[in-house]
């Protein structure tokens, strides 16, 4: 558990958010993350995030699937239990291609979904703290971490000049923990900040 101090700005317009993100980066603050209700084209490159390596993982899973299918079928049908299908040779590659294709797709899709969940830290009973619940509805939330060098009042004023509707200094848990959203209502208790905007 590590609680950190953040400066959290809420924006209600992407047209304001984009230049704000650029200026915050230019000034030298390190953006923790930007939370938006919907995916925004180009925001990742504006934030300077690198391309995801999910595709590479997908390719590796796919190759694994191909190898598994071809390896298992050729072992089973030529060595372990050869069967005669209509006089075809035991090693008859064309007949195996559909299965190989299916297993390639299956491995890569399931593998990529699981990898995605791992990268985003999504799983049943994994709980994370929110900066502002309205980032799932109608607000764009940008947060950056306060270090001992950060001048808080200056940073808050800076975000306000960039067009943030509301800026506050807040403490947040950055790690995930196990729990249930419907049993632990602590997270939802922070209603004051929701109403403040």
């Amino acid at each position: 558990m590590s609680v950190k101090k953040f400066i959290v700005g809420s924006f209600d317009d992407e047209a304001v958010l984009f230049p704000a993100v650029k200026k915050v980066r230019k000034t030298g603050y390190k953006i923790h993350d930007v939370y938006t209700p919907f995916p925004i084209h180009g925001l990742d490159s504006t934030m300077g995030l690198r391309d995801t390596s999910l595709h590479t993982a997908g390719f590796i899973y796919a190759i694994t699937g191909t190898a598994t299918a071809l390896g298992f079928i050729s072992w089973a049908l030529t060595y372990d239990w050869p069967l005669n299908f209509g006089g075809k040779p035991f090693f008859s590659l064309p007949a195996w291609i559909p299965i190989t294709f299916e297993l390639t797709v299956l491995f890569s899709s399931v593998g990529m979904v699981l990898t995605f969940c791992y990268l985003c830290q999504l799983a049943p009973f994994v709980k994370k703290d929110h900066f502002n619940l309205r980032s799932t509805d109608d607000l764009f939330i940008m947060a950056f971490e306060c270090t001992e060098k950060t001048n808080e009042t200056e940073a808050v004023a800076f975000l306000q000049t960039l067009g943030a509707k509301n800026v506050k200094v807040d403490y947040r848990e950055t790690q995930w923990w196990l729990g249930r959203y419907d049993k632990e209502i602590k997270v939802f208790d922070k209603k004051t900040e929701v109403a403040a905007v």
Partner: protein
Amino acid sequence: MSIREHFVIPQRYKLWSYALMAVGLVSIILLYVTHGSSNDEHERARFWASLLQNSVFFLLVVNASMFFICATILAWGGWPMSFRRVPEAIASVVPVIGIISAAILLAIVFGGDHVIYQWTDEKHLDEILQYKSGFLNKKFFTIWTLLTIFLWWILGKKIRDFSISTDKGHMEVEEGKKFIWKNTVWAALFMIVFALTVMSTIPWLWLMSIDAHWYSTMYSWYTFASTFVSGMALIALFVIYLKNKGYLEYTNEEHLHDLGKFMFAFSVFWTYLWFSQYMLIWYSNQPEETKYFEPRVEGVYRGIFFLNIIINFLAPLLLLMKRGAKRNYTTVTLLAVLIIFGHWLDFFQMVHPGPSGDHVPMMMYDMGIGLGFVGLIMFVTGRTLSRNPMVPINHPFFKESVIHHT
């Protein structure tokens, strides 16, 4: 931003197109002297098969440009607007190669030889060909071929004229809506014609009837996939060339990325059809069906047949898979050339085993004729491009293309 509106054909471009056309002509003459003027009808068939393969392949490839335009019109896709004049210019080659193809096809049908199209020998039809004679006869072939090429030309011209009419000036909202609707209706008409020709009857008549006793329901789709992916590669090549010359200022790697995606996706689609056609016939193992694959898989065309899968499937699959590769001008250029060559080779093995199944004819002449057609496409496309502004800046969807982001 100021843009270079008009394409000025560079001297080298002109020279290259003339040189390639000369290579093509010389190849045709040489092939005529060595084979075409022979007394043996099998030797003559070798000459005509080569012309058939090249003209039909390049006709379908340039026509695929118009299919691409109409598909994006129907989907209300705005992203190709910044380079739309390129496929339009390529589509303007359709009447030119269309006339050449029609002449070659009719010469083969009415020439008196029956090696390429056995069904033209109306007095000696066997039982199977008699059953098919309602469809495979000279009269229907002639009418449908001429009508098809005419319709491709006239509908394509209509759609190109719409695009050029936007150069008159800025359009108001209502005017723009009307314009898009008119485009949609005519593109839909072209699509219907395209479905009834390229996607069904035309490959049956022009190519599948070379092996008249055999049929495959996959064949037309297979031909379509082959020519469409080459058509996309051709568009990409022209876009990259013009970009290198400093034209098409609004086109960037985002658009190239989408062209690359088309090349990648339809290479896989082609493979899917290639394999489905092969596997079903391999599985059921009926003599009348496997006959088609006998020279291709077991016979002398085996090398070409399997080279095909490497060039047209493995190379695009592995080399175009990465996002960076699709946005890289060099990789896309290389693969575009490879794909066009690969599908040309695919057509080679579709056409030639029919008239010469026991040997692979020397491919040099065919390549020469193919280069001649490339020169012709360069020549006509360049001329059309230089006539009109390069970028349709008044098209209602133009802005969508400028801010396009993948």
